[in-house]
């Protein structure tokens, strides 16, 4: 009975795991297939071809999109880490007028669904003259309520002696934050960093609204428009090639840092 249950468990798990991995393998395989072979369950192309990738490279500036995505995600993540930890530090360790008000604001604004402010945000970006610029993608994403909460909570747990000793040595609050607290906060930095980076990398709706020039698009936006806009035509292999290229950087990072990814995203999901 016990071995039966054990086997049943493995059967369920393996079947389920296959359901999750097979589609991705099929996608990668289809990106190397000629159109005539797409309607097949086989994962090995009979006539291996790079035509799908060729179509992507000739029809859309995908490398520029890759650069845009990396640039926007890296800068936004760096800004979120710096600014959110600053606010988290101030809320956790400093006494100043309005501190509780600001913490309540953070908690309150976290509950506002982004779709509510979508239209005015678009108008604001247009009025600022930021449409079709990196600023439109980066500046609104420079602050993270979830990040502030995670940093505040972690900084509150650090011993006061650290701060006192640093103050006696003549450290400013900025030095305490970046030279003493940051090196101790790797788990929080990783959690906020991964969550912000993945969120920024995968975002589609916001770029769709504020970016119209193909040269300024991020990868998910460009790949989406490539498939939806009919640029790919009926070339399924090209669509799969574009989708594979969009997925690849995250998959590679995920393979190396799987546990960090899972713990970070689960934790920030609970906090959010």
């Amino acid at each position, binding site marked *: 009975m016990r071995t039966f249950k054990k086997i049943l468990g*493995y059967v*369920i*798990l393996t079947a*389920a*795991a296959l*359901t*999750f991995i097979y*589609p991705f393998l*099929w*996608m990668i395989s289809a990106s190397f297939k000629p159109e005539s072979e797409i*309607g*097949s*369950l086989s994962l090995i192309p009979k006539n291996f071809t790079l035509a799908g990738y060729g179509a992507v490279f000739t029809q859309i500036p995908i490398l520029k999109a890759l650069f845009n995505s990396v640039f926007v995600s890296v800068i936004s993540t760096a800004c979120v880490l710096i*600014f959110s930890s600053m606010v988290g530090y*101030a809320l956790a360790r*400093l006494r*100043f007028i*309005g*501190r509780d008000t*600001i913490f309540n*604001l*953070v908690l309150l*604004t976290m509950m*506002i*669904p*982004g*779709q*509510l*402010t*979508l*239209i*005015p*945000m678009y*108008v*604001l970006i*247009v009025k600022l003259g930021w449409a079709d610029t990196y600023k439109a993608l980066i500046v609104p994403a*420079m*602050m993270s309520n979830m990040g502030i909460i995670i940093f505040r909570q972690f900084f509150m747990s650090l011993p006061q002696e650290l701060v006192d000793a640093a103050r006696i040595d003549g450290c*400013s609050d*900025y030095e305490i934050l970046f030279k003493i607290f940051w090196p101790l906060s790797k788990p929080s930095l990783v959690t906020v960093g991964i969550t912000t980076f993945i969120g920024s990398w995968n975002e*589609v*709706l916001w770029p769709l609204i504020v970016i119209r020039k193909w040269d300024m698009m991020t990868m*998910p936006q460009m*790949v*989406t428009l490539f*498939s*939806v806009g009919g640029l790919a035509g009926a070339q*399924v292999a090209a*669509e*799969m090639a*574009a*989708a594979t290229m*969009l*997925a690849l950087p995250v*998959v590679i990072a*995920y393979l190396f840092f*799987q*546990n960090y990814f*899972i713990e970070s995203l689960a934790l920030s*999901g609970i906090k959010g």
Partner: protein
Amino acid sequence: MKEAAVEERQPSYLARLRMEYRSSDKAGYIMVLPYVLHFLVFVAYPLVFAFILVFCKWDIVSPMEFVGLRNIQRLMRDTTFWTAVTNTLKFLALHIPLQIVFALLIAVVLNGPIKLRGFFRGAFFLPFVISGAVVTILWQQLYSTDAGVFNLILTKLGASPVPWLTDPSIAIYSIAVMATWKNVGFYIVLFLAGLQNVPRELYEAASIDGANRGEQFWKITMPLLRPVTLLVIMLSTIGGFGLFIEPFVMTGGGPAESTLSVVLYLYKNAFQFLKMGYAATIGFALALMIFLVTLVQRKLLDVEQPY
């Protein structure tokens, strides 16, 4: 003691504020300044603006025109909007149960003495980290009526192909299945964390009292997992109301508006029909619905904390 002295002299509010400022950490003001600026420009201003837009007609180009409650009246009578709401409810009606059953089943199996737990957990979580754009473009192909993987399997098994995305009575459920596939790994991890928090002694005590595995699951595990279940339901609901990229890529809201989501309708009103006021009204209605639905769910499920 400091406070007592302050009260005796009855200083004005301003004087007290000045004293408080003097004794406060000045660095704090500079450190929260970026947050305050960001809040004013990208949260407060858009919120106020969105609220004003609800009472206006505006195509961005010509000047705004005050129309009173006309946007709200229109929303109440707009059958397309209510179709989008119904579609969302249909989506959730399949998505939430599917998600909970599947996530719970896998989490329970993974919580047992399983080798390769890390590998399995990693495999289930993979779609969650990948962009929704990838997942929808891929699944659009898997769902293809002529050459899609699902219909290839069905025809191999001798069944007739299913028009997954082209039949108005099926399409929204096809999208719900895909969304479950994308997100379930995240919920498996949440349930797994919940299961690991259940004290072993409870099971030992129950089995001494003669409770079998099934009774233990329903009487101990499920009540203790109630907070996690509530979280899963709330997050799925919020996600379901935010449905956009899936219908945008796969169906454009069709066939016959059967997959039109509220956010896609908002997007179309704003950026295709240039009805900014009406789109803002849809945004408020959406926020209100999310708030009400999650409130009801919390009331229904949070009857009592089992701890």
